[in-house]
């Protein structure tokens, strides 16, 4: 049984099949990329896996558990974190607070003890902060720690969002277009971080990407979608040469 098993997943919006009988498997420890032209259903697929949409048919299994009908807030504690294509950070909070919010699933104390801020709560807070500092060190965010998201440049926000996802201490990380809108150096850095996250932290990564350079560098296997359907699967080199993929990107005549 593979780590993340997507089987026969479908959803339609107002008669349009956004995702049409898609199946794929992700093995533990790999970097898996999903590519496809605009409107291919990549983000919708992510939304289905992470519990933001519920499919019309098919199933999603994660670490041997059926998560098809679980809502997002019950999927996150299982060790699945994600980022968003258009960045969904907590705008009016600082970077530190954003990362601390990322540790929500690791809270152990109750709201009542928060009211009194019992010593146990303080110990827990210190523990959260130590873990958050590790992420800050890894992603080199120390300089921005106390700044509000609203004041940060786009590239940094993108990194903070990955950082927030890492604070969940996930086993599986879904990255939706981690390099879109970044300049070449920032993309390069992001590529290194994805490799680090995968290799050093042992996190399985599934990412949606446009940037074929990044995909061939970090991804082991690639899935190509077009109009909601799988058109190719294999190593980056194989998929890039696949005629169906070439047609989808350049238009078939």
């Amino acid at each position, binding site marked *: 049984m593979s780590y993340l098993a997507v089987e026969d997943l479908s959803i339609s919006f107002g008669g349009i099949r956004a995702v049409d009988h898609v199946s794929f498997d992700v093995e533990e420890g790999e970097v898996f990329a999903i590519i496809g032209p605009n409107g291919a259903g990549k*983000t919708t697929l992510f*939304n289905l896996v992470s519990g*933001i949409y519920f499919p019309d048919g098919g199933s999603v299994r994660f670490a041997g558990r059926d998560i098809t009908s679980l809502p997002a807030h019950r999927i996150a504690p299982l060790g699945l974190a994600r980022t*968003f*294509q*258009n960045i*969904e950070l907590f705008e009016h909070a600082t970077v530190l607070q954003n990362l601390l919010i990322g540790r929500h699933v690791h809270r152990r104390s109750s709201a009542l003890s928060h009211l009194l801020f019992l010593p146990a709560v303080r110990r827990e807070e210190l523990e959260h902060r130590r873990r958050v500092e590790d992420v800050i060190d890894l992603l080199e965010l120390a300089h921005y720690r106390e700044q509000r998201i609203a004041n940060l440049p786009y590239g940094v926000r993108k990194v903070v969002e990955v950082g927030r996802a890492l604070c969940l201490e996930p086993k599986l990380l879904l990255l939706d277009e981690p390099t879109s809108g970044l300049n070449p150096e920032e993309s390069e850095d992001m590529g290194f971080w994805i490799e680090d996250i995968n290799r050093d932290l042992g996190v399985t990564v599934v990412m949606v990407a446009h940037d074929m350079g990044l995909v061939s560098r970090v991804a082991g296997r690639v899935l190509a979608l077009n109009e909601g359907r799988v058109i190719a699967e294999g190593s980056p080199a194989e998929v890039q040469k696949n005629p169906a993929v070439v047609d989808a990107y350049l238009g078939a005549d």
Partner: protein
Amino acid sequence: MVNFAQGDLMMLGAFVAVTLIGDFGLPWVLGLLLSVLALAVFGYLLDAFVLRRVLGEPQFAIVMLTIGLGFIFRAVAGLVWGYDPQSFPTPYTGKSLRVGEVVVSYENFAILLGTLILCVVLFLFFRRTRLGIAMQATSQNQLAAYYVGIPVKRVFSLVWAISAGVAAVAGILLAPVSLVQPGMGFIGIKAFAAAVIGGFGSIPGALLGGWIIGIAEQFAGVYLPAGFQEMSAYGILILALILRPQGLFAQIQRKKV
């Protein structure tokens, strides 16, 4: 854009009409047209000088701003016209219409007819005219509307002008049955309930919402103990929001990510 001061604009419209017709002795139809026009100009200026500044601010700011404006209007109306309820003379006061067994007073008939005409006109305006369609576009996506060349600011001012003018019509229609006084705008909350039940942005929906509330109030008045009549509108509003949090004819969907 949400306007919590709509009821108070209606009240202003009624007062202007009372002044023009009752005090200045203008002919009824002329006074009516003039007060609608006056309110439309007022709405335009209100947007141009006050509301335009909060364009692009969170919705919360607009809600609070219009609530504040409503209070100002009420205080000003109280200063100018006083707090004693005034009656509103119409050419049709006291007469009634007989249709077979049913007797309807002309005042209520005027409300019915006026509402129908207004709805048809507005419906056609939003469906058929360039300006109406531009307004719909603006309400859906301000930036995109601006990019395709719609003068968003002017459109907003015009929306406010129309909305104030419509409020004036409503005020004038309502004035003969409920006296004219600064507090009459509170019925605006019920209008809100109607709009919410119908779903914002849908004129037939608002009409249906209004009917539901009106009928329910009458039934509650007849069949339930005293007090339930006033409560029924709010009860229905809450019920409707529980069942359809985005209105019966919802157009707004969950945010995309």
